[in-house]
């Protein structure tokens, strides 16, 4: 080609065709390159976003570890300090001994609860949780949950009521897990209520395909921005700088996993200053056919 230009001879048709062909190939290459560079940019942006997400997850994990560490160490601190006091001072007055031992026992329970919750969460996350479903009278389970938390309600002078809209069908669920959800909602409700003025109302109702439980408190309420995040693990409402969180940030996350595993849903309705209503629904069986299928499945499994 260079030779032909120097000689100033008109290029042959073949040569022209060759040049055109080359030019179009170059254009195609350049187009391809542009396309690839765009794809590369998109991939880089995706990677950057993924990286940011990982960093956020890492930060949340760090925060969680720090929270867990704090929550594990706090009861342990009281247990150790009071045990050492009792151990070193055999002459501690009897009333004081009783008082301190009472605290040690309570803190031990608190620590146990926390460890259990963490293990539960780990089981749910790894898919290793065991489920034992049976036909349940939800009202009965609710009454049992209220019974189990009655001391907490008494201590805090918070009233609790149960009301049911008519007779309710039974649901198919895991009794212990359902209990876990109820205990969590009840203890949350009693904790946010102002002592002496608190009121917690539990409502049971039945729709066409689901049974619904509402737990309403007259506490400070939850702003709409937090309605979803409180169900995420490691997240707590009122997470202001330096303030001590109330728990591990696992209770509601565990509750959501349980309810969703049972085929239902859980949510909160609330506004600041208006109290909060935590509700969950569990599916009701459509009728005998579904039950028969379940039984057959159970027989096969057995």
């Amino acid at each position, binding site marked *: 080609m260079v030779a032909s230009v120097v000689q100033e001879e008109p290029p042959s048709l073949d040569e022209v065709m060759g040049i055109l062909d080359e030019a179009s190939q170059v254009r195609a290459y350049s187009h391809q390159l542009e396309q690839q560079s765009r794809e590369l940019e998109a991939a880089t942006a995706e990677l950057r976003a993924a990286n940011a997400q990982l960093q956020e997850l890492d930060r949340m994990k760090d925060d969680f570890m*720090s929270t867990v*560490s*704090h929550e594990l*160490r*706090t009861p*342990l*601190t*009281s*247990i*150790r*300090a*009071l045990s*050492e*006091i009792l151990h*070193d*001072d055999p002459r501690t007055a009897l009333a004081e001994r009783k008082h*301190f031992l009472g*605290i040690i026992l309570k*803190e031990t329970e608190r620590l146990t609860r926390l460890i259990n919750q963490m293990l539960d969460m780990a089981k749910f996350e790894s898919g290793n949780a065991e489920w034992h479903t049976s036909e349940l009278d939800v009202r009965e389970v609710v009454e049992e949950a209220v019974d189990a938390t009655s001391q907490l309600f008494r201590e805090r002078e918070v009233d609790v009521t149960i009301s049911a809209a008519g007779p309710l069908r039974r649901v198919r669920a895991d009794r212990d897990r359902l209990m876990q959800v109820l205990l969590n909602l009840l203890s949350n409700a009693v904790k946010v209520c102002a002592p002496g003025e608190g009121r917690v109302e539990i409502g049971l109702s039945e729709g066409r395909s689901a049974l619904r439980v509402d737990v309403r408190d007259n506490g400070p309420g939850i702003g709409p921005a937090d309605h979803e995040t409180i169900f995420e693990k490691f997240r707590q409402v009122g997470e202001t*700088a*330096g*303030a*001590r969180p109330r728990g591990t940030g696992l209770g509601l996350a565990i509750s959501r996993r349980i309810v969703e595993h049972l085929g239902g849903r859980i949510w909160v309705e609330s506004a600041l200053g208006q109290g909060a209503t935590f509700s969950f629904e569990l599916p009701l069986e459509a009728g005998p056919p579904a039950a028969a299928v379940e039984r057959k499945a159970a027989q096969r499994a057995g």
Partner: protein
Amino acid sequence: MGKRILIVDDEPNIVLSLEFLMKREGYEVATAGDGEAALEAIAAQTPDLVILDVMLPKMNGFDVCRRVRADPRWRAVPILMLTAKGRESEVSKGLGLGADLYVTKPFSTKELVAQIKGLLAAARDPGGER
């Protein structure tokens, strides 16, 4: 004796055990359950030593420590930070802000008492080892 210790912690059971320990050593005790109350208590009557938790409502222990150190009247008050946050970055943050000691929970009651005695002695004798 007659030394006055301010205990700042939002965990009632920890306050109770610290109060018992300090009283057993013959110290006078004041308590505060959050950061703002701690500053008020210090302003009301300057303590000889502050046992300061980090995770506190209203104002955290780091900020309390910073405020105390920024005030010429309180600059020399020994501060023992007592916290369940044991990460190294937090320890150095506390010490960087002017805390005299950083002790993680759970603590040994004997060691804590010895550390407090040491800090009080050093404060009485500013030439002594800190």
